[in-house]
């Protein structure tokens, strides 16, 4: 038997990614698990607040398909953006810029996940939910990633629609149609997205400038971005209260959403008045809490209904 010393002497020790191949964890990283968790949660809320009943297994499959489709879209996004990810500090440690995963493999992996999730959704749930899922994935990959992201400062305003679909897809899975409350949930996430991403873009401005991504702060400047962030939070305020009047939220939701949305507006005002990027960073973190808390309030309302 060869001893360890002779093996070590005979073989190279530096792990060149191309020679050892990717780890399973590298593929998981391609799915953007943190983004996926919020997508899954918003889908779960859509599933719970929709009127009607869905078999637990079919409910699980709905959420699984939303997660797989979001993950697959993220992998294709990373494949397409691997050139700019390499120059941005925030993204340069991703598997593709580091050469840990072959780009072609990442594309095939993402494409297979999108195709598989849509097929499974069609098989398990039905045509409408599957079509919405395919549309959301296609919108994220083709409209946002390939078309808008590098061309217009409105990239995340329009592209943000892709991330707003999960509650609507889940709603369609339960009810077989798309009703007004599902559209309102879509609109809440749609109008939440710009201030969320622009808060990030404000304190990552250098990154986006270096990569040549025309984010609003890069093209129109910080002042204009901050004003637009405030406008979006003001539009979001009444929208966030709407579920209370559409039968999916109640008094607890109304009070909670009022407080959360007021704080979001206050965050935007602080960002507007702040010359540094400190409040932008705080607003980015608050925006994550805001959406999670707002959706959680809908779950609380559902629990209260069941309990009552």
């Amino acid at each position: 038997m060869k001893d360890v010393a002779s093996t070590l002497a005979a073989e190279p020790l530096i792990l060149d990614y191309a020679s050892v191949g990717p780890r399973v964890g590298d593929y998981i990283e391609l799915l953007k698990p943190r983004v996926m968790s919020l997508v899954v949660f918003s889908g779960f809320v859509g599933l719970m607040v929709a009127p009607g009943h869905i078999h637990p297994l079919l409910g699980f499959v709905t959420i699984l398909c939303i997660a797989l489709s979001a993950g697959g879209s993220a992998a294709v996004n990373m494949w397409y953006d691997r050139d700019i990810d390499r120059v941005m500090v925030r993204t340069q440690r991703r598997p593709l810029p580091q050469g840990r995963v072959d780009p072609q493999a990442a594309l095939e992996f993402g494409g297979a996940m999108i195709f598989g999730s849509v097929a499974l959704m069609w098989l398990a749930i039905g045509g409408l939910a599957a079509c919405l899922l395919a549309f959301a994935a296609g919108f994220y990959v083709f409209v946002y990633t390939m078309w808008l992201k590098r061309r217009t400062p409105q990239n995340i305003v329009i592209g943000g629609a892709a991330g707003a679909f999960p509650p609507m897809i889940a709603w369609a899975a339960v009810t077989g149609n798309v009703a007004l409350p599902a559209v309102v949930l879509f609109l809440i996430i749609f109008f939440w997205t710009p201030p969320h991403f622009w808060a990030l873009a404000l304190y990552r401005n250098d990154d986006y400038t270096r990569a040549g991504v025309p984010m609003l702060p890069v093209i129109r400047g910080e002042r204009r971005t901050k004003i637009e962030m405030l406008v979006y939070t003001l539009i979001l305020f009444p929208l966030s209260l709407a579920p209370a009047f559409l039968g999916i939220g109640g008094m607890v939701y109304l009070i909670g959403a009022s407080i959360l949305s007021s704080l979001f507006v206050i965050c935007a005002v602080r960002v507007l008045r702040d010359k540094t990027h400190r409040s932008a960073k705080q607003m980015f973190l608050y925006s994550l809490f805001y959406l999670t808390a707002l959706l959680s309030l809908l779950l609380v309302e559902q629990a209260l209904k069941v309990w009552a």
Partner: protein
Amino acid sequence: MSEPNQIPVSTERRRRQRTRNLALFFVLLAFVVLVYGITITKIKLGYGS
């Protein structure tokens, strides 16, 4: 003194290949079980009847 991460490339390549194969196997297995479960559930719920 040897570094703790001094692993021959061939050993690491084999280890990663084995893990990837295993992960793929479990993903495919889960898919088959899921499709089976969905089919049974839909039959029980009366779809297609």
